[in-house]
């Protein structure tokens, strides 16, 4: 069995507040190389007091534009996340899956391909 690498969000962000997109990107950039190498990653939200959609979109949502759903499901897991936050994460994940299936449906932008 492959070893699971625990990525502690609190340590990467440097505090308990996970609200900014930029902080989410820090987490994203930390886990992407690991996922590319096929490693199993457990994202720990221990000590995180507040997490919102902007953070989760940047940290996790955009992964669906870079990896197949099956790859994410097989390699990524979350732990130490309260049930209330899991509800939000589920919404972010479902939205990201729909978005990357058809980005134009979400933007309707003239001359904007979102690519």
């Amino acid at each position, binding site marked *: 069995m492959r070893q699971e690498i625990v990525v502690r969000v609190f340590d990467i962000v440097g505090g308990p507040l996970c609200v900014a997109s930029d902080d989410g990107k820090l987490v994203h950039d930390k886990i992407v190389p690991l996922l590319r190498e096929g490693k199993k990653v457990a994202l720990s939200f221990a000590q995180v007091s*507040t997490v919102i959609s902007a953070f989760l*979109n940047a940290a996790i949502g*955009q992964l669906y534009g870079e990896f197949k759903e099956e790859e994410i499901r097989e390699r990524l897991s979350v732990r130490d996340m309260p049930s209330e936050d899991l509800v939000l994460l589920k919404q972010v994940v479902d*939205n990201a899956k729909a978005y990357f299936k058809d980005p134009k449906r979400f933007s309707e932008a003239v001359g904007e391909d979102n690519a």
Partner: protein
Amino acid sequence: MIFGLPDVRSDEAGFWALASLWKAADSLEYGKLELDLTRCNWFDANMCAALGAVLANVADRLNAVEIVSVRPSVESVLCRNGFLTNFGYPASDDRKGTAFPYRRLRLTDAGRFEDYLASNLIGKGIPEMAAGFGRVFKQSLFEIFQNAVQHSESKHGAFVCGQFYPVRHRLDISIADGGVGIPALVERFLARTMLPEEALSWALQEGHTTRRGRLPGGVGLKFLKEFVRKNGGKLTIGSGGGYYIFSGAYDSVQPLGHPLPGTVVNLEIDTADTQRYGLGSEISPDNIF
């Protein structure tokens, strides 16, 4: 110039009143605005956030702002939350512990917003919220704050103010930004002219976001609405020339007579909520992805 402000509540008429003030002061530069509250017999304390955002924009044109003829009942409320102290009125103790003080925060300072919530959600006469509910409520407020950070382009920061009504177990809290407003952002993003209410409707659709780049978005509002629906609360948004109201039973977008500067979001919640806000049994942490 002198502007007479009528009653201001957290409703469409309240937004109209503040939008009318902004329209009246539209061309005022290097002058003086005298805000006359003779006709104002009621001012919802949380709407100080919206008024603060309007007046910050007025002052930004190097106008002096004076608030006069405030009725004692209104003065009492607006001094307790600290709003009027910004206009030379004496500070007043919030003995009942029900005011969420008026604050103007930098958009770069999410930490101060966190401190603001921490010091006001607990121990100010507000009963301890059920743990899960308190967490989701705080998330909802951060969704609003962070939306201002990402989209408002405000140079004035965020304005926040609230009021707790203990007998009714109700908390009203407002966050305003005085920035560009949602309709203008949507018009720019879609590169076409739209009615303000049409543009606001577009932005309120699930998954829609004006952020460019390969990053999904538009989940925050859905999360906020689900929280409000479940709680039995109410969400109102005034932005540019559009007004939106949402409760579990009602959902409507209307035009405002004049545009507001930026966006004001009002959240009205039932603090005695003891419902569970976690995942249902049909979803497990193992099948999130």
